[in-house]
């Protein structure tokens, strides 16, 4: 299975309108063979619609789709050779696990004698060895998820689409499955396009993440780039734990936050409506000389213990709320002032992220 090569996917200007509702608005996106790309966006941003267009269930109102150079825009779903994992798994309730996984082989008229071995091998890949004869109702949520995955892989598709496949699982299982999916992706070599509304999940698993908002592609980038170089205030607010604060431009490298001048290492974008995105982990408790770092001071409002870290809420002199994270080890915790005490902070110019405010 490992030698299967991923499909190249080219989406150009894909649009979909449901009457007056524009679900998808001229989205263009190229996915390299073997790449893992997530579609990330809030509910209603058009993720499922785009996946439906790729799977062939949704007829685009405009634009085209190519798989490996072939135009498949009007190819019916059963001729696309795409493995799909649906949000609610969509397992066939009247079939056993083995029959579910053999479905694609039967549908493709593969010789019956080959089914058993391929089903067995695929179930082994998702850690369900020996589950062939179980009924779907006898499985836990995580096991159903694996069956759905096995069923989408068994015919060795070069492209696999997944629509929020982990959203029904509890947190621990979800995080374990994220790592498993990543490893499976490496072994399979297939291209994966993965829909999620969970930004951590997208950042954890993907080579690149495409951010959708109101049916439009806002930004597509590597996870680290997305986090540190958001295109606008929507992306900055969606990724990580940012506080968004309005700032005024002073010059190409300086902005003013409620009267305090802040230096940024990156060119301040053009336009009047600017926003400073302060990620909780980038704000540091002041220690020693400034060394060219931006300084802020405020008052501690609250400290929330969250296990591996603490979140400190504070207020600047003008009343602006902010928060930062501290690891919950002794040295770090000791430095956090008590509630009502003044707190001194610094923000490195490299971490001073100024973005244009998203219109609309």
């Amino acid at each position, binding site marked *: 299975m490992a030698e299967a090569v991923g499909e190249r996917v080219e989406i150009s200007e894909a649009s979909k309108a449901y009457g007056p509702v524009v679900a998808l608005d001229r989205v263009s996106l190229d996915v390299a063979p073997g790449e893992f790309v997530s579609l990330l966006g809030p509910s209603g941003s058009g993720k499922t619609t785009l996946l439906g267009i790729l799977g062939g269930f949704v007829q685009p109102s405009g634009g085209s789709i190519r798989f490996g150079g072939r135009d498949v825009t009007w190819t019916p779903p059963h001729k696309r050779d795409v493995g799909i994992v649906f949000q609610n798994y969509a397992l066939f*309730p009247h079939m056993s696990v083995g029959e579910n996984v053999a479905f694609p082989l039967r549908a493709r008229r593969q010789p019956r004698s080959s089914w058993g071995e391929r089903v067995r091998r695929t179930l082994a890949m998702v850690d369900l060895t020996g589950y062939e004869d179980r009924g779907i109702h006898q499985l836990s949520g995580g096991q159903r998820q694996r069956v759905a995955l096995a069923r989408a892989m068994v015919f060795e598709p070069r492209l696999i689409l997944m629509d929020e496949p982990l959203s029904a699982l509890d947190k621990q299982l979800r995080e374990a499955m994220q790592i498993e999916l990543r490893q499976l992706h490496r072994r399979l070599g297939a291209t994966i396009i993965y829909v999620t509304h969970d930004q951590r999940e997208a950042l954890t698993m993907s080579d690149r993440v495409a951010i959708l908002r109101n049916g439009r592609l806002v930004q597509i980038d590597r996870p680290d780039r997305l986090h540190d170089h958001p295109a606008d205030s929507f992306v900055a607010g969606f990724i990580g734990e940012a506080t968004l604060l309005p700032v005024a431009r002073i010059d190409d490298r300086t902005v003013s936050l409620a009267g305090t001048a802040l230096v940024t290492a990156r060119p301040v974008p053009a336009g009047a409506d600017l926003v400073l995105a302060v990620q909780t982990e980038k704000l540091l408790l002041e220690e020693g000389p400034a060394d060219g770092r931006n300084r802020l001071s405020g008052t501690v409002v609250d400290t929330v213990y969250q296990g591996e870290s603490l979140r400190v809420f504070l207020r600047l002199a003008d009343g602006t709320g902010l928060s930062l994270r501290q690891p919950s080890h002794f040295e770090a915790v000791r430095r956090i002032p008590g509630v009502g005490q003044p707190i001194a902070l610094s923000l490195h110019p490299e971490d001073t992220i100024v973005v244009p405010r998203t219109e609309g």
Partner: protein
Amino acid sequence: MLLLASPALLVVLALVVVPVGWFLGLSVYDGGFTIEHYRRIFVEDVYWRSFALTFRIALVVTAGTLLLGYPVAYAAARLARPWDVLILLCVVLPFWTSVLVRTYAWLVLLQRTGLVNQLLTGLDLVGEPLALVHNEFGTVVAMVHILLPFMVLPLYAAMKKIPDELILAGASLGGGPMHVFRRVFLPLSLPGVVAGLTLVFVLCLGFYITPELLGGGRTIMVSMVVSRNVELYNQWGAASAVAGVLLLAVLAVFFVVGRFLPLDRLLGQK
């Protein structure tokens, strides 16, 4: 639990147990205990033929409603907004006219000089008008029509419960439309098929007005035997015995269906 169920138990007692017990009592008590009425059913030809005819008609009518009803229910379950409502409305509309009216309507359509025969002779498809009514054929046609909603509605309900995603999944996994229908849609609609078959079959067994009016006096179904015993001969005991045997036959059908169809697998899918 028992307390909560007691109103329901009372209703069942008043509407089912008491009347059934009453007529079963009548069938064995005629101025004294007797099994004469049952003996007559088992030795006299007329009764046997009536039972056989009734079951044959019930089978044919049930099969007919399934054949016609399945595509109708399928269309209603799969089509988008205005069409599904329209189809269901056409199915349910006849409910608002009485069975008597619908039966007479078929009489008008199927008689020697009726619309169907006029069309057939007019197109020179047949030389002589066909005997389409006053026989078993006319009875079956009208019964299929009258009982069709009882097939379509359970089918529709079962089909509506099949998640759209399963059909999409079938297609995405490489199944063409026919394959997905055979392997996914059809098996998942079986609970509706079983419900519809049972409902229509049982309704057929007790059907009265239509065979009486369209059967031409030769299509004597069990219900008519009962009615004749009461109306012509004032034989309540004989009528009750026939009804008792019919009831037993219905229970037997349920028993056999339950034994040989994996009903709990078909109906009990959570």
